[in-house]
C-alpha cells in the first residue's frame, strides 16, 4: 500500500482502533503502539479487500501474540507506571473515585468474558458489522448474533452481580460496626 492509502486508513480508523485496543488491553499507550504497528503492517500489504476487518484482525492478533508473554506484560506495566510520572506534567487527567471504581468493575466484568466473545463485542462497539467481525475473528457470519448475545448477557450480568456484591459489602461493613 502506498503511504497515502495508509494515511487514509489511519485517519478513518485510528480512533476506533485505539479505543478498541484500549478497552481490550486496559492501557492506552500500549493500545496506541499496537495500533501503530497495525498501520505499519498495512503499509506492507499490496491491497486490502476489507479494510476494517483486516485492521481489527491484525490488531487483535498482535494483542494475542503479546498477551502470551505474560512476564513481558507485567514488566511493561511497571515501566508504564514509571513513565506515567514523566507524562504527568504534560497531561494531568483528573479521575473521580467513582469513575475509577466503575472502570475497575467494568474491567473485571470484561475480563470474565471468553476471549472470542469479548473481541466480538468490542468490535461491534466500534461499529463493525457482522460480516466484518466474522472476517476478523474467523467465525461464520451466522454465529455472530449468538456470540454477541452471549457476550452482552454475560457482561451485564457479571457487572450487576459484582456491583450488588460491592454494595452488600459496604452495607455489611456498616452493620458490623453498629
Amino acid at each position, binding site marked *: 500500500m502506498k*503511504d*497515502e492509502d495508509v*494515511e487514509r486508513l*489511519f*485517519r*478513518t480508523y*485510528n*480512533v476506533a482502533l*485505539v*479505543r478498541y485496543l*484500549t*478497552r481490550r488491553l*486496559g492501557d*492506552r*499507550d500500549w493500545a*496506541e*503502539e499496537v495500533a*501503530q504497528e497495525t498501520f505499519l503492517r498495512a503499509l506492507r500489504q499490496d491491497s486490502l479487500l476489507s479494510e476494517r476487518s483486516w485492521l481489527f484482525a491484525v490488531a487483535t492478533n498482535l494483542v494475542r501474540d503479546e498477551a502470551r*508473554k505474560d512476564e*513481558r506484560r507485567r*514488566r*511493561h506495566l511497571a*515501566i508504564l507506571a514509571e*513513565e506515567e*510520572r*514523566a507524562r504527568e*506534567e*504534560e*497531561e494531568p*487527567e483528573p*479521575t473521580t473515585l467513582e*469513575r475509577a471504581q*466503575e*472502570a475497575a*468493575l*467494568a*474491567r473485571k*466484568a*470484561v475480563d470474565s468474558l471468553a476471549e472470542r466473545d469479548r473481541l466480538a*463485542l*468490542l468490535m*461491534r*462497539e466500534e461499529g463493525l*458489522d*457482522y460480516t466484518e467481525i466474522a472476517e476478523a475473528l474467523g467465525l461464520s457470519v451466522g*454465529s*455472530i*448474533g*449468538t*456470540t*454477541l*448475545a*452471549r*457476550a*452482552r*448477557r454475560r*457482561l*451485564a450480568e457479571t*457487572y*450487576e452481580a459484582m456491583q450488588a456484591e460491592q454494595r452488600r459489602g459496604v452495607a455489611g461493613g456498616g452493620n458490623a460496626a453498629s
Partner: protein
Amino acid sequence: MQHLDEGTIHAWLDGQLPGEEALAVEGHVAECRQCADAVAEARGLIAASSRILTALDSVPREVVPNQPSFRAEIDAARAEAVADAAADALVPLELAARRPRRRWFNGASLAAAAAIVVGIGTVTVMQRSGRDIAFLASKRESPASATAGRSVDSAVSVAALRASAPAAPSAGTSLGNASGAAAERRVGAAPLTVRDVRANPNEVASRAASDSGIESVKVLKESESRALYGTPAGNSPIAIRSVPQRTDTTANKPVDQLAKDAKQEVQVAQQPPQAGNQRIQVEVPRREPLGATIAKPDTARVDRPQQVAADAAKGVAAGVVKGRVTDANNVGLSDVTVSVAGTNTRVVTNAAGEFTISGLQGGGYQLNVRRVGYQQVDRDVAVAAGQTVQTDVVLSATQVALSNVVVTGAPGAAPRDAGLRAKTAAAPAPAAPTPASPVDTAAAVPTPVAQSSAVGCYEIGVTALSATRNAFRQVPRRIALDSEPMPASADGVWYRARDVARTNVLPNGLWRPTGPDAIELKWEYGSRTSRIRVSGPAGSIMRGNLEEIDRAKATGEAANVVAIRRACEP
C-alpha cells in the same frame, strides 16, 4: 414460526439481518408476547454492555482519545485559523464578507489556506522576476471574479500592487484598507528576514509591498508552489531552497550552500534588482501532519478557531497578545509553550522566543508559559478587542540535578536491568543552569550543516535491546531534518528537526551533522532526553543507537536504530 433465538434478536436489533428476514422477525415480535419480552431484554443488555464498555475508557466517550495524531490535527486547525486570520487581513473586507464559510478539516482547505503559519514550517523570501507576472496579473485584473471563485480551495492573497496600479486602476480601492494603505505607505527599508515573516506575516507583506523595486507580495498555496516550482511547499525540497538565501533586500542571511537543486532559484534571486520588475514571494509552506484531515471532526474542539475565522471574515478585530520569552540572560527561548488558561489556545515560541496569540476576545486571560527545564510562569493579561498587548516573560531555569550518563547500546547486549545499571556512571553533576546538555556529547564532533548532505527526510526504525522495553513510543517514525539553525546552545550549533508523521511528538527536536555521513538527533519529552546517533554512507541505511535518559532519575534505555533516507513527499 418458532420463537426467536437470542442471537437472531441481537442480530435484528443490530440491524444485521437481511431485509426479508428482518421483516419476518418484526412480524413475529408484534404477535408473540414472549419474544417481545426477549427483545426488550436484549435491548437492555445491549445498552447495558455498551455503557459498561464505555466505563473502560480512561476518558469519557465522545471526548477525543488523547492521541498525538489527533492533537496534531487540532493544532493544525488552530494554526490554520491563525493563518486565515492573517490571510484575511490582506483580503478586501467587502469581498471577505462574501466568502463562504470555511469547512474545517477539509483537506482542500487545509492545503489551500493561504499558508502563513506562524511558528510552523519554513519560509521562503525571494525575489523573482518575469515568469509569474502573468499569473499575478490575472488575479489582479479581475479581483471580483477571482474572489467570487475564491472558495475554500482558492486562498490567494495578493496585496499591495504599487507598480501595476495603472494596469488595474481599481485595484487600489478594491483591495481595501490593509493592503491599499500599505501600498501607499513607505516603510523604512530595513531588510526583511525569515524571522520577520514568521513572526508577523502581515507586516512583512505590507513592508515588502512598499519597498522600492518590489511590485507585489504573494502568498503561495501548495498547488501553486507545485505548479511554479514542481515541488510541494510543505516538504524539504522547498525547505532546502527556502533556507534564507537572500543577500540583498529581503533577507539578511547567507545563501545556503545546500540549495544545489535549487540553483536556479538562487540564481534568479541573485540577479540584481531591476526597478519595476521585481517581486517578492513570501512562501510559508505549511506542514501537513499525518492526520491533517480527519473523518470525524470534533467541532466542539475547534470552535475557537472557527470563531477566529468568523471574526476575521466579518472584519471583527480580535485581540492579540504578543510577547517574547527569554531566559535570565535575555536570550530568546524557542519552543516555549504559551497557553491561554481555560482555553484550547496554545502557541509555541519561535527561534527568537517570540509568540503571538491572536483571536482572543476582549477580557482578562491568564497565560501559562512553560518549557521543560524552566519554571512555569503564569501571567495575567488584559486583552481589548482589536488591540495588541505586548507581554514579555523571563523564565528561570529549574535547578534540576543532571547526571552525566552515557548509555551505549549494542546488539546482543546484556539484559537491560543488569547491563544498563552497570554502564550507568552514577556521578551526579552539579546543578546545571541550563538543560541543554543532559547527556554526554563527547562522541559528537559538530560539522557545519553546509558540509553535510543530511538535510532531508528519514524513516526511523528502533529495535529495543531488551524485551522489557517493548517500544520507544516517543521515537518519531518519520523525521525531516531542516537547515534552520536553532539558537546556539552550550554544545554547539543545532538545527531544527521535525516529526513528519506525528507533528507534536518531537518537542525541541534538534539535529546536527557529526561528520560527512553521520548525524545526531535529540529531543526532549517529559523528563526525558533522547538522542539518536546514526551514520552510514549516503544512499544506504544509516545505523546507530538511541539513548534515552531520564534526567530526573539518571537512568536510561538504549536501542539500536536505523535511519533510511526517504523522499519527503507525504
